[in-house]
């Protein structure tokens, strides 16, 4: 298998998505959206559904396009470049969880709705901030044909908009996935969280008092696949974000003068900018390599590529955001400077689903230890 493949479909999706996000998410628009309740304008969301983007990973028999996560990558990368907020990623992740772990009935019920534009979300992380998706405290107790949930989930994105949320909980001592519908949430189950990336709409979901039919427990519980999908799409956002923030930097370095010189002529700013450029290219290479491998069978190679991509991208994007603020000098210290938008996004991406050190530790056995 080639190390990086980029198909006709991906090329077209990238072109469309770049235009779409440029048009619909200019940075002043991102700032306006931050002040509103939702992460995206309803009209833009329905345009995204009309473009077929929500059904990309959904098999054709459930109303989707039957493509793969690799085809979602160019879209999410473009959104990341323009800091576009929306429930797109959580919805794709939920659809993917249903495709991988859902029963036929669950897929038949939910996937066509998602393909047509229904929002969905994931509730995986808990208050202790543990990145290991299967080390959770929330419980599900089955009694008859119902399951009663307890515990608290965090970082549930766009939860009030979601028609369905995929919730992880321990059932009979094993981590499982349960579908919770919007109409099964008690009032006050959701509390808005204050998070560093203000383009996100992040919620705490209190599971106390939620009881759902036991048929809403997913048949399978493939947490590895959920994690890989999440890491891949976060890396796509970071690759796009790196390009976006570098444009902000280059624009300022080529227009701002100090001591009668454009500040981009100073090597102390020029050289780190090149470092950011090369780290952006590296991030893109790792990203599309991981996306290419996903179609194959080599589980170790897939896991290595995805964790490497997330580890490299996390550090690169955080560095780029940090330098972007610094290079803007006094203006960089203000809320009005766009650099902070990217830095905040970078910090979100860095700490969701494992930071660089976490993934490097997990890469150790895959890359360093001889297979016995």
């Amino acid at each position: 298998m080639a190390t990086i493949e980029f198909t006709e479909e991906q090329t077209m999706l990238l072109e469309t998505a770049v235009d779409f996000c440029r048009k619909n998410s200019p940075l002043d628009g991102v700032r306006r959206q931050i002040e509103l309740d939702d992460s995206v304008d309803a009209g833009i969301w329905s345009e995204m559904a009309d473009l077929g983007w929500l059904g990309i990973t959904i098999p054709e028999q459930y109303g989707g396009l039957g493509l793969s996560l690799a085809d979602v990558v160019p879209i999410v990368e473009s959104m990341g470049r323009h800091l576009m907020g929306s429930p797109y990623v959580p919805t794709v992740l939920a659809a993917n969880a249903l495709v991988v772990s859902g029963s036929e009935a669950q897929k038949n019920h939910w996937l066509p709705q998602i393909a047509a534009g229904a929002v969905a979300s994931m509730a995986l992380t808990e208050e202790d901030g543990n990145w290991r998706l299967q080390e959770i405290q929330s419980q599900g107790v089955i009694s008859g044909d119902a399951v009663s949930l307890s515990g608290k989930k965090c970082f549930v994105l766009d939860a009030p908009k979601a028609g369905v949320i995929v919730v992880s909980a321990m059932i009979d001592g094993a981590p499982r996935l349960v579908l919770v519908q919007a109409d099964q949430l008690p009032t006050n189950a959701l509390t808005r969280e204050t998070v560093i990336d203000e383009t996100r709409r992040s919620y705490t979901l209190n599971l106390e008092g939620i009881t759902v039919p036991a048929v809403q427990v997913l048949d399978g519980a493939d947490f590895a696949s959920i994690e890989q999908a999440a890491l891949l799409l976060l890396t796509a956002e970071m690759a796009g974000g790196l390009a976006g923030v570098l444009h902000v930097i280059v624009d300022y370095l080529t227009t701002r003068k100090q001591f009668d010189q454009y500040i981009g002529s100073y090597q102390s700013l020029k050289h780190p900018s090149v470092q950011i450029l090369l780290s952006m290219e590296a991030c893109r290479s790792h990203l599309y390599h991981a996306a290419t491998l996903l179609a194959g069978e080599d589980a170790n190679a897939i896991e290595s590529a995805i964790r490497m991509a997330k580890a490299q991208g996390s550090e690169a994007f955080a560095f780029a955001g940090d330098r972007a603020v610094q290079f803007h000098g006094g203006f960089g210290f203000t809320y009005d400077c766009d650099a902070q938008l990217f830095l905040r996004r970078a910090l979100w991406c860095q700490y969701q689903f494992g930071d660089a050190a976490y993934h490097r530790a997990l890469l150790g056995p895959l890359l360093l230890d001889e297979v016995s």
Partner: protein
Amino acid sequence: MTTTQAELKEFEEQADRWFLENKPANPGFILPETFMEVGTDSQFEFLRDWQNKVYENGYVGMAWPKEYGGGGVDQVFQDIATKAMAKHRVPFLPNTIGLNWAGPLILMMGSDADKAKYIKGILSAEDIWCQGFSEPDHGSDLGSAQCKAVKDGDEYVVNGSKIWTSLGSYAKYMILLARTSQQSSSKYAGLSFFLAPMQAEGIEPRPIKKLTGEYGFCQTFFNDARIPASSMMGNEGEGWKVAMATLTFERGAAGGQAGGLAMMDLTIDDIVELARRAKRNGRPAIEDPHVRNELVDLITESKNNSLMAARAKVPALATDWPTAISMSGKLRSSELKRRMCQFAISLQGANGARYVSKDAVDGGMWQRSYLNAFSGTIGGGTTQIQHNIIGERVLGLPKG
């Protein structure tokens, strides 16, 4: 020429067997990694004998014309042989300038007499070649070369000096870029290109002692040295064009490079293997969490460098700054190599402080490799200049 898969397969097995059986035994002294680091007569003779043996057995210059000493077969055979050399980690072929630059150049634009005179000696390593492009005052700025060649009858009289002439003390010929006119329209138009005999009176290669304590480079002085006018390649004033052509030979094309291993390269796999053997505080270094973290980071960076070639083949993904990948290859690979060598030393506990000697880990090759790695981060434009170039030409930042 049609070659069947069966023939290729058979040749692959033959080459694999030959390099397995003929890989030279450890000579008892530490070997250089590239032709730029050949510092002693015994190293040089060992490597020249090796290239000669490889040539006598038909594994280098395979695609070069048979009438001049090449193998006259398809390039694909050479690629297979080169791969076998890398696989068995045999020594590199030291006549690097001849095999990769002078030879292809002579095949492309030399006369039949030139080809008959030079090609076989390049392949057999009987005639070692060196390069005379850089000058002490013009590190990477070849166009400003000041070394002068003045025509006098059927000779040119050369004065000046060239620096970083690897194998200068052993070379029979030099590809020389010299200024033949001071009155030309541009600095480039005043340059000419010679295949200069090194044995001419007035040419003196003086070895330069490197930071490793070894020799390997020379500064070559020209003091009224007389070289035949017939040794000029191309016409007077075309030296820049010829030099640029020399530097851009592509593999595989007719009259391309002779093939064969040009360097013993360190890979990240070598560092991982060292981390398994080397001890820190009594335990294998690879068990230390900090070592593991750093190793994974280096593997990630190394993987990235190897992915860049595949990325470059996808134009749809070269969007914002399309020349970033192609312009940064030397910067990325040379800096990674320096850091890998630096890290390899840190795996050795107190023995990190040793240098080339029998008590050192792997004879001290890691320490020496680290010091030699600066040839990559300095030669061909320093890392700092590379950052300026990429910042200005790729990102469009203003010059300082």
